[in-house]
């Protein structure tokens, strides 16, 4: 039954998550997931000159979901929106050094939430 064996990097990001919290005056906020399925993630971004200068997250979910959120925020901080948008679930999982097979879907959330946040930012800009 122990198919869920997390590597040290995943554990590190789970026990010491980076960029946890909210950004009160965020430029973009994206929430994905469903509490019924057991994971919800919100990502807050602050954008300046097309670059993500600050990013925070809040995640309700398993260790894989929390670690994915944490590492994804690290990966895109300081990146342009175009670069950040290209982040895929595989990039997140790879950066974590792999996730248990049944947990691969968790890395989806991070990239999806980020794209939602960027979408919201652009929508606001369009106004």
């Amino acid at each position: 039954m122990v198919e869920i064996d997390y590597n040290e990097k995943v554990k590190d990001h789970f026990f010491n998550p980076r960029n946890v919290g909210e950004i009160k005056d965020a430029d973009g906020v994206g929430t994905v997931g469903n509490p019924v399925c057991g994971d919800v993630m919100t990502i807050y971004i602050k954008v300046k000159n097309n670059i993500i200068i600050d990013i925070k997250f809040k995640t309700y979910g398993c260790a894989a979901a929390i670690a994915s959120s944490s590492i994804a925020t690290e990966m895109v901080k300081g990146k342009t929106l175009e670069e950040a948008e290209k982040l895929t679930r595989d990039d997140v999982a790879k950066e974590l050094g792999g996730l248990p097979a049944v947990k691969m879907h968790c890395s989806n959330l991070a990239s999806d939430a980020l794209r939602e946040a960027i979408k919201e930012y652009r929508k606001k800009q369009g106004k």
Partner: protein
Amino acid sequence: MKKVYLDYGATTPVDKDVLNEILPFFHERFGNASSIHSYGKEAFDAVENAREKVSDIINCKANEIVFTSGGTESDNLAIKGVAYINKDKRKTKGNHIITSAIEHPAVLETCRHLEKQGFNVKYLPVDKYGIVNTKDLEDAISANTFLVTIMYANNEIGTVEPIEELGKITKEHNVLFHTDAVQAITKISIDVIKLNIDLLSVSAHKIYGPKGTGALYVKNGIKLEPTAHGGGHEKGLRSSTLNTPGIVGIGKACEIGKKRMKKDTFYMKILRDKLIKNVLEIEESYLNGHPEKRLANNAHFRFTAVEGESLNLMLDDKGIAAATGSACSSKKLQTSHVLLAIGVNPKEAHGSIRFTLGKYTSKEEIEYVSDALPEIVKRLRKMSPLWNR
């Protein structure tokens, strides 16, 4: 680091007295209980002695005990064994089995398997505490019903079922009654005669015995179709060379369990209630299961906006071993069928955790957990977008 084991519902350490009793049967007294020479006789006597001890804890005759490889096999043998005998004998009549929605997978999956073979299975609902309504059983029994299988006490939330009342109903309707007593044995005094139980499953490793050994009580006169065919061991019900060390182990575990039952359950209940009281002081925390009609060693909680796997891992990081009902940590990523059956919102079910105490649990350990848990819940809630308080 301090280590606190509160997952006795998953498995228990082998009691040292049990271990000492088992050890000679690996090397010195290794005989095959079926052999007629002195080596065989020695093993045979040990097995029969164990059979006495197992029968003694549930008040049946020694010859009504069949040794198996564990609780799962006992459940399979009981349910399939009765079902297949009935299939042959009554063809179309007698194809109805009644069980509950909160059974262990060993029972549920066996029933589902039988459904595929043409049997009809009724899964009785339970109330918000996990208790089967006796009236529901009464209503569900028809002329076609040949077996009722309802667990003695639930493995997840610890709820104890009204076995005596259920047994009265099955007896009245002349229907066989099987109960999975894997979690209940040694924690509740069981008398199969008084309770009208026809078949009862137990497992050694939940009661300080070794893994890989179980037993099934089969009331004399009840016919079962064997699930394993071969050399005809265990009255032909379970062929396979007898696992003498394991059987000696379950015998000794039952003997000790019976002797210590009162003392151990009294003591575990005090500690469990202390844990429940402490944990429920955490904001938006809830006890799953019944406040009184629960196993002496079970405390099962849920916390709003906290996910169970994360909670479990953070506890583990503090050296605390518990079990989670979180879908995220289950094999199939499915929410616990027990929590859904008692009406817990799927959203809330993910935040569940089970602590199961044992006879080695100390007051200090309960205090350690009581201190660690609020901090962990707070930490996870701080990260959770679902927590806005």
